């Protein structure tokens, strides 16, 4: 039996910022319904991968496809439609400071639909409930929220679109949170994946979260993803580079991949 076609595919992607090469002939596939965690050191370009997928950044060469269609060939309207289907949860939440929580959630619905404010409010309340936030927060400002609440509002904003997104990209969803909130965000990612049947890509360097939420883990190393496997296999990997990173020793990080 042949393997299913990936929903997202990076094919020989090269990306650099000036002299700093981030990706060199990078390949990666994400399958429908799975949660893939992308791990790797800080500043290596994990988030770049997500931003290229929704066209916020453009690679120098290679191709990125979503459901077989090249993202790089999309025009402005094509990208707009793609971004309705792929939601992005930013590292710091990316909430609009000048808008209330409700207006943050309403932003995409006002942009893409003709729903009335009452309908938008109903939908926003449902999404707030899904991420475990109370309705009375809806009229507050993002500055009044804690770090964990901001991340959950960002998750609610990501799923508010009608119909719900097919893919959710999480950029460092647990960064800067206390252990209790890290666990809560992890549970939310799993819950949304199950309830909405979405495909998720989680960029993180928080290993317990990566192990807990993902089906597979891809490790960014030397501008590629040389190690991609199930979460359990990666966790128990005997490859020094992988086990060093996952278990935190990083003693041979400079030596290159070793078997």
């Amino acid at each position: 039996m042949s393997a299913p076609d990936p929903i997202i595919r990076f094919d020989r992607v090269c990306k650099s910022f000036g002299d700093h090469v981030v990706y060199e002939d990078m390949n990666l596939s994400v399958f429908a319904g799975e949660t893939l965690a992308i791990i790797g050191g800080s500043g290596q370009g994990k988030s770049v991968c997500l931003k290229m997928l929704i066209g916020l950044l453009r690679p120098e060469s290679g191709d990125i496809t979503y459901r077989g269609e090249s993202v790089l060939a999309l025009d402005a309207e094509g990208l707009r439609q793609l971004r309705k289907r792929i939601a992005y949860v930013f590292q710091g939440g990316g909430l609009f400071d000048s808008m209330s929580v409700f207006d943050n959630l309403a932003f995409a619905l006002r942009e893409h639909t003709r729903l009335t404010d009452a309908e938008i409010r109903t939908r926003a309340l449902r999404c707030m409930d899904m991420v475990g936030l109370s309705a009375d927060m809806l009229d507050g400002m993002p500055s009044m929220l804690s770090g964990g609440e901001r991340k959950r509002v960002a998750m609610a904003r990501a799923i508010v679109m009608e119909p719900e997104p097919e893919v959710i990209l999480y950029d460092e969803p647990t960064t800067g949170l206390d252990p209790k909130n890290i666990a809560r965000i992890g549970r939310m990612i799993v819950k949304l994946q199950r309830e909405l049947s979405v495909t998720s890509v989680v960029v993180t360097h928080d290993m317990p979260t990566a192990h807990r939420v993902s089906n597979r883990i891809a490790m960014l190393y030397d501008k590629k993803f040389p190690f991609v496997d199930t979460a359990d296999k990666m966790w128990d990997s005997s490859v020094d580079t992988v086990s060093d990173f996952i278990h935190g020793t990083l003693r041979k990080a400079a030596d290159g991949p070793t078997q």
Partner: protein
Amino acid sequence: MKRAIERLGGFVLAGLDWLGGVAILAVTALRVGPRRPFGWGDIVKQMAEQGFGSLPITTFISLFIGMILTWQFAWALKDFGAVMTLGYAASLALVRELIPTVIAITVGAKMAAGMAAELGSMKVTEQIDAVAALGANPIKKLVWPRVFAATFATPLLVVWGNVVALGGGMVIGEKWGVPAGYFYETYIDMLVPLDYIATLSKGFIFGFIVGIIGCYQGFNAKTGTEAVGVATTETVVATSICVIVADFYLTLVFF
């Protein structure tokens, strides 16, 4: 010597790069902005912030410019026994030149710096990326309302500034023995339609320059909170230089 030439070359190239970036943003904003939905809500909000928010400082500056210039002219004219021509002397300098230019450099720079700081902060905190990720066009959503508001708020502020400066001149004229009514009549008498067109046109063009530079600087702020400060400072300098240069060419065109 070689190093100095290299530095000069680098400076020129960086300047051209900056000008190119501003021009591309201006063209893109003018291309995507007027499309539906027009974004009146955002425009009205920006007009209120930039226009009404700048009224007190515009009033203060214009009043003092009017008074200072009229005083200087009166001081010079008294030696020739021509103080009664004070209105004639002050009007051209104020309406054609000083009010639009000084308002653009002070109030306009304040607007541009505010835009650069706000958009720079939004960039640093990934809010601009979030606008795009939610399927909106950041130039349409963030740049267009600001540029539109600055372009239309600045000439209105210039009109108000001219009125206040005239009032300031009348006060000083009284001090030098020129009745306020006479000062007003001579002041208005000196002006021709081209002067009104020039002062309004300068307001529009300076407003556009202010808006586009403020947005460009904000969108191109480097990451880090310090970078927002740098972007804001550079915005004030860039706005002042561009307004002065534009003023020179507009003066050549009109007069």
